[in-house]
């Protein structure tokens, strides 16, 4: 029996023991065909899905390699049936190919006529196919390329897309690496993406996803359309691109509610793309406004459904999706894979942290006991009101204050979901509040002030969940959230993960009301972070030590003054 780091389970999950000497090597061997599902402290869980196996085939791995990796690293004998199943599944890939026919344009060709007959008869697939050229080839309308691939995936005969990409209109873009360098993992991510043509890169918040985008643009050297979640995030992209690439202000356009510029590199928001007037999407022409060579989707896990439909028409253009987490609360991960492309790169958060590229973070859950009056209000409240009552309890206020006092010199964010509560916090903490109605100008001003240290504490609503860049936020306190959203938790943690100039630790606090729905939702969200390897510490509000006290922050480095 060999003593490998891997245990293969009957349900095709793989358990990888992280502390095993061969763990790194094993991870590299299984990463092409297994999705990382959880990466808590000791044992990481990967899942072998048909989709992952097909992606591996698309990336040039064959069944033999997969079986070999499983057998070689497995600690226990692997059931023969499982290996056979893996080989069978992989064998289904590539029987159908999408190729450009010199005469007929895009066609679906097969090496196995029976499979083609099967899919032609499938109700789901048939409407997308055109005339049959010969027994092994069918014409496909170019606009159906994406939908056809999706449909074929659902019927279990994924097509290999060999139709290639259009180069788009060339535009010189270079990375300007004078005072910085692309990190190894960023380089690997870009290479993985480029080799695959299209796909999604998964990196933790703060790990420099923007730079992966910029490097991809420099590789494509073509006009690029960047889709972002909101205007602030768009401006952030623009700043980064100007600083890190040869692009100048004039070459980058903003396409948002305020401005409608179309330039060689255009940054558009999801919101403007999905604005409808009289039932029609008004700004779809943007996709055709230029011969785009690359389309970048920022925060691809938030991609709204209409954009999915549009993306199906863009299959001949290179597509890069960027995200911190592929968890979608709507469960449409598969659509991301089939329309944007398979996952091309991911890395456990803790790996990148250990390389020093994201700040180490300490996650603390502070439990607050409600006072009797609040408990009674909570007990008799309507079920739909309960979470709000628990999350916005005023008993939290002194605790939040005390938390902030623990880090008197750190730039801190207080994040919540309920505006009343945020207003109240803003007043009590004497800090400005940023919410949906705050103008972009005001937001930028406040962010700038925060960045230079004029403002130490900001109170933000969930509008700031995404893509605002606050390089020096070192403390985040979340007081309420959108129920149990794991994705929101990941984003909020991301706010503090950007590496600090002096390598300080980041602190992520969650203040919850004990024995209420608030605590229940918090547990659900934390499970996600625990699965990413972030262990939570739970502290009672009463035990929360101040700075300099035993168990308080940094008490070893800076003894009590």
């Amino acid at each position, binding site marked *: 029996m060999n003593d490998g780091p891997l245990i293969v389970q*009957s349900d095709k999950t793989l*358990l990888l023991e992280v502390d095993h000497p061969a763990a790194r090597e094993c991870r590299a061997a299984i990463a092409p065909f297994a999705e990382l599902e959880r990466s*808590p402290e000791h*044992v990481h869980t990967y899942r072998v899905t048909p989709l992952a196996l097909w992606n591996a085939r698309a990336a040039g791995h064959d069944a033999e390699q997969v079986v070999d990796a499983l057998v070689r690293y497995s600690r*226990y*004998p692997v059931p*023969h049936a499982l290996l056979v199943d893996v080989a069978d599944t992989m064998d289904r890939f590539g029987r159908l190919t999408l190729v450009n026919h010199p005469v007929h344009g895009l066609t679906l060709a097969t090496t196995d006529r029976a499979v083609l007959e099967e899919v032609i008869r499938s109700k789901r697939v048939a409407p997308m196919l055109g005339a049959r050229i010969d027994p092994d080839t069918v014409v496909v309308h170019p606009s159906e390329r994406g939908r056809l691939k999706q449909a074929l995936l659902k019927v279990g005969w994924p097509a290999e897309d060999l139709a290639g990409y259009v180069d788009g209109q060339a535009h010189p873009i270079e990375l300007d690496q004078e005072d910085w360098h692309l990190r190894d993992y960023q380089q690997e991510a870009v290479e993985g993406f480029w080799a695959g043509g299209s796909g999604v890169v998964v990196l933790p918040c703060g790990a420099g996803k923007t730079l992966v985008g910029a490097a991809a643009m420099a590789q494509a050297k073509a006009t690029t359309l960047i889709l972002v979640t909101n205007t602030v995030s768009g401006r952030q992209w623009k700043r980064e691109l100007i600083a890190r690439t040869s692009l100048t202000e004039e070459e980058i356009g903003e396409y948002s509610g305020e401005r409608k510029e179309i330039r060689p590199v255009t940054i558009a928001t999801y919101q403007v793309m999905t604005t409808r007037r009289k039932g029609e999407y008004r700004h779809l022409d943007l996709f055709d406004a230029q011969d785009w060579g690359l389309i970048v989707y920022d925060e691809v896990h938030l991609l709204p459904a209409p954009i999915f439909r549009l993306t199906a028409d863009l299959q001949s253009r290179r597509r890069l999706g960027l995200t911190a987490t592929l968890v979608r609360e709507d469960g449409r991960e598969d659509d991301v894979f089939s329309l944007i492309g398979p996952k091309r790169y991911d890395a456990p958060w803790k790996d990148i942290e250990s390389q020093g590229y994201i700040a180490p973070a300490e996650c603390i859950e502070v439990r607050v006991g409600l006072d009797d009056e609040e408990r009674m209000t909570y007990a008799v409240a309507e079920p739909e009101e309960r979470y709000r009552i628990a999350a916005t309890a005023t008993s939290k206020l002194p605790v939040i204050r005390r938390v902030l006092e623990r880090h008197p010199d750190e730039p801190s964010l207080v994040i919540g979901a309920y505006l009343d509560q945020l207003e109240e916090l803003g007043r009590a903490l004497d800090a400005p509040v940023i919410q949906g109605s705050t103008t972009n100008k005001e937001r930028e001003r406040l962010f700038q002030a925060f960045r230079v240290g004029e403002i130490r504490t900001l109170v933000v609503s969930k509008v700031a969940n995404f893509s605002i860049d606050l390089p020096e936020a070192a403390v985040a306190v979340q007081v309420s959230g959108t129920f149990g959203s794991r994705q929101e938790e990941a984003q909020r943690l991301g706010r503090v993960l950007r590496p600090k100039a002096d390598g300080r630790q980041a602190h992520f606090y969650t203040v919850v009301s004990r024995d209420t729905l608030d605590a229940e939702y918090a547990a659900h969200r*934390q499970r996600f972070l625990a699965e990413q390897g972030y262990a*939570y510490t739970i502290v009672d509000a009463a035990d929360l030590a101040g700075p300099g006290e035993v168990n308080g922050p940094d008490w070893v480095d800076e003894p009590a003054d």
Partner: protein
Amino acid sequence: MPADRPATLAAWLRTRSDAQLAALLAARPDVARPAPSDVVALASRLAVPVSVDRALDELDAATLQVLDVVLLAPTDGVPAEDVHAALPGLPDDVVDAAVGRLTTRALLWGEDVLHAPDPVRRAVRHPAGLGRRAAELRVTLPADLPAAVGALDPGEREVLERLAGDRPVGHLPETGGPGASPARRLLQAGLLARIDALNVELPREIGLHLRGDRPYGPPRLRPEPAAVERDPAVVDRQAAGAALEVVGRVGELLAVLEEEPAGLLRSGGVAVRDRKRLAKALTVSETDAGWLLELAHAAGLLDVGGPHRDEWLPTRGYDLWREQPLPDRWAALAAGWLESTRLPSLVGSRDVAGKAVNALSPDLVRHTAPAIRRSALAALLDSPPGRGLAPDDLVALLRWRTPRRADRLAPVPDMLAEAGRIGVLVGGVLSGGGRGLLTRGEEGAADGMQGLLPEPVDHVLAQPDLTLVAPGPLVAGLADTLAVVADVESSGGATVFRVSESSVRRALDAGWSATDLHDLFTRSSRTPVPQALDYLVDDVARQHGRLRVGAIECYVRSDDHGLLSQVLGDRRTAAAELRRLAPGVLVSGLGADEVLTVLRQAGYAPAGESPGGAVLTRPPARPRAAGRRLGAPPSMAGRPLTDAEAEATVREIRAGDAALAARPAAPVRQVPGVTTAGTLEVLSRAIREGIPVWLGYVDAQGSGSQRVVQPVSLAGGFLQGWDERRQESRTFAVHRITSVAPADEEAPAAGNG
């Protein structure tokens, strides 16, 4: 060799040496018991049809082909060299060996000239796959056969070609359209013979004509399939993988059944509902759940039990089994499977009545199963370790070995698949454990698996996401404990448990304290117990039992706490069995009326209270029994008769009339179970002359009936015929026929109404 050739089998037997006779008895042991008194007795014993069939069943295809040559010869007695000439495709040594095997078994006799005894001729129904002669089939062949065959259209020719293959008998297809099918046209042309209502036979002459220069068909050489070659070490590792899986799954299955047993159906077996539940609990398919149930049962780990013997429960053997080392556990499963008389692959298939067969149902018992299983696997035992046969090739080989038992080979592919799932077989190659199992039984199996299966672990890895990972099979004690404290999330080589609020509550309900749980985690986890886990336990423990539930019959309440204390302290109220539940409230297990009476007698002035808190001024009601609740009166109207039922009833009445009318004065009667020559004589005559008979019949359920039957054929103890009453073709066991007589021709035909 004596110059004068023996004239009969008995005479020939006399010429055989003692060793040869011993070989005969060894090859056909059934004739040796009880010992025949003399050679004549031996010869007559050898002529018993059952014995001949048995001897023939054990022969391979090449030997049977040699026998065919003798059987098909125009005259009795074929010189041995003619046999060689007749089968140019078979090597001489194969033919010689076959002749040797046949004469050893006295299925052929004679030295230079081979004779076939009559019983053997009768036992081989279609020698070389050819039909009977045209004369026997009462068919007149066209004068110019080649011309007639040459003139057939392709459809007709195809039918003939097919019947000229291995089996000269075919089903007549149902006539659908107006045009006659090729088979029917052939019948009319006299190229096929009808043998009963459904089947036709190809006359031998036509078969021989179509076969041309190969009258005995293609040479039946032993198939030499390409062997599957695999590294024995790899085979063993993969077998171990399957073994680990199957042992784990069976363990989980039994653990689930321990918690909630499956009910025993009245027909035996496990209900589909239970199978679904188990499939869900184990996250396997329903087919797999059925297979695991069968496997656990075969190994004696699961059986019927419970106070009313109506539940499927793990057996006492299970308690021992789970304590055993993994190889022993596997060996117990594999040995149980090998010797099982059941066919698990049939679970879920439809029986003749179209009903799905349940897992563990008695319908799955086939007493031949262990022999078939063993012989199939034993065929692989001949090749060295690491070498085997693909399933299809193995079946082809078995088919060649015993072609007359080919129908028994139907379950073999499923058996081989099962062997693969257990780990006895990997891709057609026997594993070390499998070889051990076949040669040395359970012990050998365990030895073969030794060192391949992981040692059980006695610890888990606790993780901050509240999972506990057991990195290997767990020791039984810890597995039991964790089953209470956590839910299994994923199983296989390792087990992933998840601790959740509900699982902790379950543990607390089961009598664990929070301290016990903390201790358990600290003791069994090799990694530091994450804080989140400790908090979870404490959180749930804090909430646990904050609400208490008990049963009482009535309460006594008062705002005057002093008064209540006085009542409680009063000796005279002891009969009311009061106790204090909370300040201001006393409760009693006695009824309100009794408590009121006791309190009144003690001099207090209690008042009754309604559920809403109002004082009841009426005196307490007189005691009454809780009466039966009146429901809707049961409906007296019967279920209406459907049209179909009415129709069937009328048809039966009319058929009964017809049978009575047709009943002759003195039918041939027979004692049930005893077939008289008279019965057979009447039936054969009826078949020959095509006249209906009146039949008294007792069916398998023991109910007697009388019916008019148009007999079609009589063979092997079964009468096939057209039942006028049921309007269907039926088969009757001759021994169940109680009486038979030719039906009166004038009797009215069976009613169609």
